[in-house]
């Protein structure tokens, strides 16, 4: 089921909210069970065949976690348990996500003739990472014992299940345990609706609106210089508004249930360097990769050379997490390279004089943005030759069309760039503070200004009016 669909907005969400708060009068556990069941219903609406896999994954990780948390095991047994748990998770993920990729590569090298046709369960990358973090923390002794319904809800919680944000058990489960979240709070519901409205508008009006332009670069016909740039920039903004729109919707929906989700975006295209970009783009994935891959690999503790190696490994695997294709590996590797250059510049580059700070910042911003756009070409292209072909067109200004259509498209792109670069982001508009669990305080708290209220009501209306049939989120396929 899609957040940007009539059945979700007008049927599923109201029923889930009503049931949650109605059961909240009966006790603290029933709403949690209700929400977990609602999440399974949400998942099964379009992925019913993978519900047993999801439930088995929850049960498997809960049992391993229980062994690590509640049983007095020796160090070797604990290591064996966590290894078995993480290996089991990776095996399932590898089978469903990477078996076809592996077979294709074996076929290419050895002409092995292997055929693998396995459907990718939606959300498997997200719920697998969530649970690996849980197991590793349990092994490190950083996890309290959780009840099964709370754990099951933590994994299956429908606002994040399909495409994140990647949740952390220490952040979520205590919120599920709080009694206060089971009582309807009109302020949180209103703020949640407004955040949802902004996300829906980003998706249905902005991302879906610019989507046709992407074909200029990535379509079947070879683009000219200007068409290649328009297509690449269109995808740059489509992906941002699509994914950040989804994340806003997830945060908004969750807020209606009284649950604060972590932020996933912080105006990434305003970044002035790649390190900054990764602190702003898909923030929960960046944090996961840092805490559970980069730091265990040694991080920056083993000298500058190994730091760069670790960065490259982390980013290449981060790329592979997005999809089983070499284009994603190249995309991740390219960002790893960018990060290495960025760190090297920070360590060895010259200091910028104060009088040149502004132009230097502007140059850094432009360079960062262009580097990101170039990397997105690999992320979006169907194959490496296709990506290289598009990049070659972007580097060849001898072929320019710039007809009436291209001029109009360029204006479109300028509007989108203006929004991404100069408009305040959702958390700023809504004064959303995940850490302190507050929202809307700067808007006059519970006495919201009428103009703001009606403007955001219009945003919700336009978001709903913009709903098109069959418009999935890009990150669903990861």
């Amino acid at each position: 089921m899609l957040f940007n669909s009539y059945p979700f907005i007008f049927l599923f969400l109201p029923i889930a909210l009503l049931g949650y708060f109605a059961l909240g009068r009966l006790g603290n556990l029933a709403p949690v069970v209700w929400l977990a069941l609602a999440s399974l219903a949400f998942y099964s609406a379009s992925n019913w065949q993978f519900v047993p896999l999801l439930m088995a994954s929850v049960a498997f990780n809960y049992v391993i976690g229980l062994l690590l948390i509640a049983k007095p095991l020796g160090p070797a047994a604990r290591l064996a348990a966590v290894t078995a748990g993480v290996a089991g998770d990776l095996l399932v993920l590898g089978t469903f996500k990477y078996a076809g990729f592996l077979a294709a590569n074996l076929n290419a090298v050895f002409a092995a003739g292997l055929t693998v046709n396995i459907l990718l369960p939606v959300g498997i990358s997200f719920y697998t990472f969530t649970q690996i973090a849980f197991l590793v923390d349990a092994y490190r002794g950083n996890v309290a014992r959780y009840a099964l319904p709370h754990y099951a809800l933590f994994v299956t919680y429908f606002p994040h299940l399909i495409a994140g944000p990647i949740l952390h058990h220490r952040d979520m489960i205590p919120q599920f345990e709080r009694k206060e979240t089971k009582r309807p709070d009109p302020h949180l519901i209103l703020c949640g609706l407004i955040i949802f409205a902004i996300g829906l508008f980003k998706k249905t009006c902005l991302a879906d609106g610019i989507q046709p332009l992407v074909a200029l670069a990535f379509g079947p016909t070879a683009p000219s210089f200007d068409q290649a740039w328009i297509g690449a920039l269109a995808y740059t903004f489509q992906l941002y508004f699509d994914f950040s729109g989804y994340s806003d919707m997830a945060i908004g929906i969750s807020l209606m249930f009284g649950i604060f989700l972590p932020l996933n975006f912080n105006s990434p295209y305003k970044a002035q360097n790649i390190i900054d970009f990764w602190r702003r783009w898909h923030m929960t994935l960046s944090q996961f990769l840092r805490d559970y891959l980069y730091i265990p690999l040694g991080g920056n503790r083993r000298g500058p050379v190994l730091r760069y190696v670790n960065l490259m490994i982390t980013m290449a695997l981060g790329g592979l997490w997005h999809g089983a294709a070499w284009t994603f590996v190249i995309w991740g590797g390219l960002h790893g390279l960018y990060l290495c250059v960025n760190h090297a510049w920070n360590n060895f580059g010259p200091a910028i004089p104060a009088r040149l700070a502004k132009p230097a910042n502007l140059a850094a911003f432009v360079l960062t943005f262009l580097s990101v756009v170039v990397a997105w070409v690999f992320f979006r292209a169907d194959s490496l030759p296709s990506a290289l072909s598009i990049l070659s067109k972007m580097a060849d200004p001898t072929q320019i069309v710039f007809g009436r259509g291209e001029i109009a498209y360029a204006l479109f792109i300028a509007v989108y760039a203006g929004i991404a670069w100069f408009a305040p982001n959702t958390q700023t508009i809504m004064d959303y503070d995940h850490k302190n669990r507050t929202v809307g305080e700067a808007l006059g708290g519970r006495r919201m200004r009428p103009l703001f209220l009606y403007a955001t009501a219009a945003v919700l209306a336009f978001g709903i009016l913009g709903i098109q049939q069959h418009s999935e989120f890009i990150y669903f396929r990861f």
Partner: protein
Amino acid sequence: MSATAKNLLRFLCASLLIMLAAAALNFVVDPLQLFRPARLFAAMYSQDSRMQDAGLIRSQDFDTVFMGTSLSIHFRQSDIDRLLGVKSLKLAMTGSTSHEQSFVIAAALERHPRRVIWQVDDWIFRDAPETDQDIYLPADLYRRNIRGLAGYLFSGAMARESAWILARSIPPLAPAVARLTTGVLFKFPIARVDDINTLRPDVDVAEAYNARKSVAAFRRVIDPVRSAYLAEGYSYQAMVKNFERDAVGLIAKNPDVKFDIYFPPYSILQWVAMRDAAPATLQLVFDFSAYMAQRLAQFPNVRLHDLRVAKETTHNLGNYADVIHHSPAIDLKVLSWLAAGTYVVDRAAPTASLERLKAQVAAYNVDETRGQ
């Protein structure tokens, strides 16, 4: 009720009001003319034929339906009417499948036309999504059910078009709005129904259709890197199944409607490309073609025209933009052949023209394309 609860209620009511206002605007302007022919506002039309056809079927008067793919998308209704002596409605859709075509024709047949002119080739019968899974065809709009009408009325994109059509109908604004109306920004830029999906007047026909382009296209499709596409999507069983359901089923269900079905005049290069780069597929197409001709010959309300053997056209490569798409001059020839019955297939020998085509394909020497 607390101040926040009141705000929540205001927020929801305001959203609802705005949505209702958009729906009211769409209902009054009715860009697709689904509810009534345009009277208050000037009629405007879209090039998105899968959507536009749903409105045309409701708003236009016609006694003949004209259906096809991109090979017949540029035909002018006025030419069809003039040369065939009918009142036609062109419903051709680029890249359409037999599921889509049959569904749209069936919707048009509810208006009881007497005749269907149907451009049919083997490719439309490839396996394709059912109409309800087809993301390009708004099937519920044709059915006029609640989902279809609600989707139409509560559409922001349609409200934008409605507002634009409204602005275009206000006299002081009309000239400026008309100048700004472009297919790049708006979905309903066409003022005359006869102009829907015809070639724009500024298109240089000689530059768009010439031997150089058709030969270049031929070389592209036989390039070993791409030649696999020639065989892609072909399955004899699937094509027979779809033909039986979408074409034969429709014809049998409407015995009072006369069906003029024609196989379009591809350039000879399309067949030669298959002959040289995908011979098994060519054999499959010939077999399927024979099956279609034999089956259609069994229906008294069908007249089959095999224009593939119109050698003076198909061997003149200057008539084509690639290996299949012919120029507007050939559009007119097609209509005159249909009117005169020049290439009507004899019911007693339904595969005779196919045999002539086979002979032409076998005899064609690709050296003739050298130097083009």
